[in-house]
C-alpha cells in the first residue's frame, strides 16, 4: 500500500518533491486520477496527490487568458468560460465514460496528456494553447517558463515539452492557457453509406475548400448504424448556413445526406470527442492512432485484416480510434505494424493492467529520438523521481 503526500500549496509541493529527490523515492503523480489507467502501470511506495492545488487565479476574457492551479477541475473552469461564451478551442476530451472515471479530470491532467478533440485540425492541440507554467522539476527546484501572452519567443518553449509529458519531467503547480470565443452556433452535414476510402476523399475535399470545417469524422457501418461521414461548421448563423450549403453543393455527388441541427450536432461531436461509441461498459482495449489523414483507411484495414476490431476516424482520417480484442495483448503487433506503414504513432488508451505491463503503451521512439528523449528526461529528472516508467520502461 503506498503512502500519499497531499500538498495544499506550491510550497508544500516543493517540500514534497525536494524530499523525494533527496531520498530517491519515486512518486506516482496524480490530480483526480481520471487518466491513471493510461500508461505503463507502476507501483511506487509514495504517491503525490495534487488535488489540493485548486482555484482559478486569473481570468481576463478580453485578454483571452486564464491561469489556475494545476489541479483545478476542468468542469469548474469550463463553467466559468461558458458564462463568458468562451472555451478551450482544442476541445479536450472527457474520458470519464471511456475509462470509467468519475469526472473529466483537472487542467494539469489535460495538459500532461495533450489530448485534443475534433477541432484539433483547425485550432491546434493543448500544446498550442498552453502559454506558461511554474512547477518543480525532478531536481527539486522550482522553475517557470513561458508567460501569459500568446506571442512569446523568450527562451525555449518549455510549455510545449511539458504538454504531453505525462508528469515525467516536472510537477506543474500553476498553469496559464489561452482561451477563445466559443462559436455562436454550429451545424453538421452528414453523408451516408460511404466506404472508408470514399469518406476520406470527401473529408479531404471538404478541408480543401474555404468552408472552414471544424470537425471531420467518419463512422464506418456498425459504429452508430449505417456508415456516416460527418462535417461540422461553426460560427455565426448566416455564415454557418452559407458554408453548409456550399459544402452540400460540393459533395452532392458523394451520396445521400442530411443536416443535423445545433443540438444533435453538439451531441454527436461530444461522442466523437469522448470516444463514447466505445464507452459501453466493455473493457476491450482501445488504441489511438495519429497518421497522415489519407493513410487512415490503409492503416485501419491492415488492423482489421488480422483483428476483430471496430474503428472510427476523426481529423479527416488522421486520427483512428480502434477497439480490439484482449487477445495478443490487444493486437499490439498488428497495430504497431499497421502504423509503421506511415510516419504516425499509436498509443494504447484503454487496456487492462496486465496488457499495459506487457506492451509499450506509447509509441516506441526511433533510436535517435529515444536518446534525445532520455537526455531530456535526465535533464529535468536526473534521479527518475517523477512518474518513472509511465511513458517508457527506461524513463
Amino acid at each position: 500500500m503506498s503512502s500519499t503526500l497531499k500538498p495544499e500549496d506550491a510550497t508544500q509541493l516543493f517540500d514534497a518533491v525536494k524530499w523525494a529527490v533527496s531520498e530517491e523515492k519515486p512518486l506516482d503523480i496524480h490530480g483526480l486520477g481520471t487518466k491513471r489507467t493510461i500508461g505503463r502501470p507502476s507501483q511506487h511506495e509514495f504517491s503525490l496527490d495534487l488535488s489540493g492545488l485548486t482555484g482559478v487565479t486569473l481570468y481576463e476574457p478580453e485578454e483571452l487568458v486564464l491561469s489556475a492551479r494545476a489541479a483545478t477541475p476542468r468542469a469548474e473552469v469550463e463553467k466559468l468560460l461558458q458564462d463568458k461564451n468562451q472555451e478551450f478551442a482544442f476541445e479536450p476530451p472527457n474520458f470519464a465514460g471511456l475509462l470509467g472515471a468519475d469526472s473529466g479530470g483537472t487542467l494539469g491532467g489535460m495538459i500532461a496528456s495533450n489530448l485534443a478533440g475534433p477541432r484539433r485540425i483547425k485550432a491546434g492541440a493543448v500544446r498550442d494553447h498552453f502559454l506558461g507554467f511554474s512547477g518543480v522539476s525532478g531536481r527539486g527546484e522550482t522553475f517557470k517558463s513561458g508567460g501569459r501572452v500568446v506571442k512569446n519567443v523568450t527562451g525555449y518553449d518549455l510549455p510545449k515539452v511539458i504538454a504531453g509529458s505525462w508528469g515525467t519531467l516536472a510537477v506543474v503547480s500553476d498553469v496559464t492557457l489561452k482561451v477563445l470565443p466559443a462559436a455562436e452556433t454550429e451545424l453538421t452535414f452528414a453523408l451516408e453509406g460511404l466506404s472508408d476510402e470514399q469518406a476520406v476523399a470527401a473529408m479531404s475535399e471538404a478541408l480543401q475548400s474555404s468552408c472552414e470545417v471544424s470537425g471531420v469524422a467518419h463512422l464506418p457501418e456498425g459504429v452508430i448504424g449505417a456508415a456516416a461521414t460527418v462535417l461540422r461548421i461553426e460560427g455565426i448563423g448566416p455564415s454557418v448556413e452559407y458554408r453548409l450549403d456550399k459544402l452540400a453543393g460540393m459533395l452532392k455527388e458523394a451520396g445521400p445526406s442530411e443536416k443535423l441541427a445545433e443540438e444533435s450536432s453538439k451531441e454527436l461531436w461530444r461522442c466523437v470527442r469522448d470516444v463514447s461509441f466505445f464507452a459501453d461498459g466493455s473493457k476491450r482495449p482501445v488504441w489511438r492512432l495519429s497518421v497522415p489523414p489519407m493513410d487512415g483507411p490503409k492503416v485501419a484495414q491492415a488492423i482489421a485484416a488480422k483483428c476483430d476490431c471496430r474503428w472510427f476516424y476523426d481529423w479527416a482520417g488522421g486520427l483512428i480510434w480502434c477497439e480490439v480484442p484482449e487477445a495478443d495483448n490487444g493486437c499490439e503487433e498488428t497495430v504497431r505494424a499497421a502504423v509503421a506503414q506511415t510516419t504516425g504513432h499509436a498509443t494504447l488508451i484503454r487496456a487492462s493492467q496486465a496488457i499495459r505491463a506487457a506492451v509499450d503503451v506509447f509509441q516506441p521512439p526511433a533510436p535517435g529520438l529515444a536518446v534525445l528523449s532520455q537526455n531530456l528526461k535526465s535533464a529535468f529528472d536526473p534521479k527518475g523521481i517523477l512518474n518513472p516508467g509511465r511513458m517508457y520502461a527506461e524513463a
Partner: protein
Amino acid sequence: MSNLKMPEVDQTTLSRRKQIAGELRRIVPGEGVIDETEEMRAYESDGLTAYKQIPLLVVLPETVAQISEVLKYAHDNGIKVVPRGAGTSLSGGALPLADGILLGLGKFNKVLEVDYQNRCAVVQPGVTNLAITQAVQHEGFYYAPDPSSQIACTIGGNIAENSGGVHCLKYGLTTNNVLGLEIVLITGEIIRIGGKHLDSEGYDLLGLLVGSEGLLGVVTEVTVRILKSPETARAVLVGFPSSEDAGQCVADVISAGIIAGGMEMMDELAIHAAEEFVQAGYPLDVEALLIVELDGPEAEVDHLIDRVSEIAKKNKSVSIRVSTSEAERANFWAGRKAAFPAVGRISPDYYCMDGTIPRHQLPKVLARMNELSKTYDLRVANVFHAGDGNLHPLILYDANVPGELEKAEEFGADILTLCVEVGGVLTGEHGVGVEKRDLMPAMFTETDLNHQQRVKCAFDPDGLLNPGKVFPELHRCAELGRMHINKGQVPFPDIPRF
C-alpha cells in the same frame, strides 16, 4: 558594438584555420567554402546590423549528407558552428563567431512536395516564407505565418525564431503551423520528428526545436501545414483621438467574440511616417490608427465589419473607412507593412524593439515610453500587433552622433524591462539572439535559465551550436547536471499524508 561579451575565442581553432578550410573543402568541394575575408563580409551580420563579426570560414553545403559531415567534423574537432538562412534576424541570431564556421543553408531552396490531400508541403530550409505560399497559391492555398520580411526570410530561420506576422491571433505562429522536421544534430546524426500526421509521439521535441534559435540542431527539411485561402477579406481603417480609445476598441472587439484575421495599431509618428512614404490615405489628425481585417465567407465578413464599426464608434472613433476592393485593402496594409522603412526615412537610424504585453497595459506602457523618450531625448514610433499584444517600438537615433546608439540601446532595454514588469515578455517574435540575451534575468531566475540550458545540454553537450546566443551565461553541462543533495538531510515534509 557596446559591451557585448561573446564566448572566448579559441586561439587553437584560429591558428588551424587553413587546415579546417581544407577539411571543409574535402566535404563540400568546389565553391562551397569561402575563406577570403572580403567575400565573407557578406555574412558578417544579420538584420541587426549594429553587430558585426567576420566568421572563421563560411561553408555552403548542398546536401544533407554534407551538412551531417560538416557538423560531425566540427563536433570531433571542437569547432563552433553558426547556422544561417537569409540572415534577416533582428536579434543577431545569425551573428558569426570569429572562431566559428558559418553554415549557410541558402542552397537548400527547393519545395520538395506539395500534398494538397493531406494539406501540407515539404520544403527545404532555405525556401523563403513567401515562396511556400507562391508554390501553392494557384490552387488557392497559402502558408499562414507572414513575418514582414517574408520576401527574404527562410522557413529554416522561421523555425529557429518561431516567427509570427500580422495574422497570428487567428492563425498562429510558426510553431502552430509546422508538422514535421528533419534535423541534423551537432554529432552529424540525422533525426526525423513528426511528419504529415498531427502531434509528435513522445516528448514534443518539435515544439522545443521551433524557437530554439539554432542552438539545438540544424533544420534540413520542414513539413508545414497549408491552408485554403479565405473566400474574401476586407479591412477597416479606424482613427482614434487617443491610444486608450483604440486599445479599448480592440478589447471590446475580442470580448464580442470576434477574432480578426489581423488587428494592427499605429501611433501618430508611425502614421505620419507611413502616410508620407506610401500615401495610404491614413487620417493625419488622429493619435492612433487601427487596421482590422476580417476574413472568411462574404456574408460573415460583411456582418463582422458592421459589428466592428459599431464597436469603434462606441469607442469615440473619429474616422472609419471600410475597404471596398482588393486594391483598397492592399493600400490600407501598404502603410503598415512599410512602417519600418517609412520610419527609416525620417531618421538616419532606427532600432526596432519587440516586446509583448497584456493588451490592457498598452496605455500605461505608451505613457511610460513617452516619458522615457523625453528622458533619453530620442523619438519613438510605435506599431503594435494589437490583437496579440506584440509591440514594436522604433527608437529613432543617429549612429553618427557619438553615444546615441548606446543611448538608444539603453532606452530599448528600459522598454523591454517595462514590458516584463507589466506582465509581458522580452520578445514576441524577433527572438533573444545576442540582442536581448543579457536582459533574460529580467524575466527569468537563474534556476529558470538553468532548466532551459539543460535542454541545450540534452542536444549539444559541448555547446558548439550557435553559442553566445539566448543565454546570458553559458554554464558547462557537467556543472549544470550536478546535484547537491545528500540523502537524509531533507526532513520529511510537514504536509498531509494518507
